[in-house]
């Protein structure tokens, strides 16, 4: 049942386009993973720098002013949602049959929730006080982004089946 879904997906034009099966589009996959790496750097990078500021690094930077960099992080998030979705359409069997992929998604989901919490309660709140809870969240989010990066990298090594067709 799931297998036939993988086969339908992998036979689709978009999937074959991502895998570079058309002569005019052999660079699609390299371009998509390059975009995914750039988005990773800016999204996880900016999020972790905000976390480090919460933890006391670069204390002279006013926390609320860091909100100005969030649009760059959201752009990076958008790039990675699109590029990630394309990679998933290209290789659904590879990702969805690998438990590591779900760990990666869970890490990103919770790390994003932490970033939204930090945005609402610390960056957009002019009378914000960095509580012990906020510091704990900053530590957890940094660990989650790191785990998302590592599990993402490990997807190239831990998959059991590349395609179903």
């Amino acid at each position: 049942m799931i297998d036939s879904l993988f086969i339908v997906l992998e036979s689709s034009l978009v999937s074959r386009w991502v895998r570079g099966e058309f002569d005019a589009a052999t660079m699609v996959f390299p371009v998509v993973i390059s975009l995914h790496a750039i988005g990773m750097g800016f999204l996880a990078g900016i999020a972790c720098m905000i976390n480090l500021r919460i933890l006391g690094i670069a204390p002279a930077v006013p926390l609320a002013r860091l909100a100005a960099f969030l649009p760059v992080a959201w752009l990076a998030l958008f790039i990675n949602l699109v590029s990630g979705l394309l990679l998933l359409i290209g290789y659904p069997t590879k990702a969805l049959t690998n438990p590591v992929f779900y760990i990666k998604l869970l890490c990103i989901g919770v790390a994003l929730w932490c970033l939204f919490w930090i945005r609402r309660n610390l960056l957009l709140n002019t009378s914000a006080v960095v509580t012990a809870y906020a510091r704990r969240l900053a530590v957890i989010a940094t660990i989650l982004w790191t785990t998302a990066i590592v599990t993402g990298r490990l997807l190239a090594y831990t998959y059991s089946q590349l395609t179903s067709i």
Partner: protein
Amino acid sequence: MIDALTRWLESTWFSNWFLDNGQWTWPLAESLHFIGLTMLIGSIGLIDLRILGLGKGIRIVDVHALVKFTVAGFVLNLVTGSMFLTGQPDQYFLNRAFHFKLVFLALAGLNVLAFYGTTFRRLKQLGPHDEAPLAARLMAGLSLVCWIGVICAGRLLTFYRP
């Protein structure tokens, strides 16, 4: 000369050890390489974007305190990158994408030298709402372009293996 260097690197104990244990050494070094990439882009990104005019209200010298993470990320990636190079030198020395990566790295390095040699002294005196001079903004833009170029060339390595 490249041939001799390749053969010498391949003969080192580290190259053999790194390849013999490639099942875990390669994924581990790659994971660290991507963590270093994120540390570098996150920190230099905020510094460059502030110089370019985003995040007014932060003194440039204050956000520049993050540069230690740029240096740390760069050193981490220099070390892990050297591991890949020592492990499979022929895969890099003859690789078109690797040549581009070196060019972007060299450009980024020259840009850093120019930045600290010229405009940084003035940037340090700017207040939280001041605009950076044009030269500084050009260097910040070039910095972002170079590091994004380094990432792209690095990601393309796999597809240009000789």
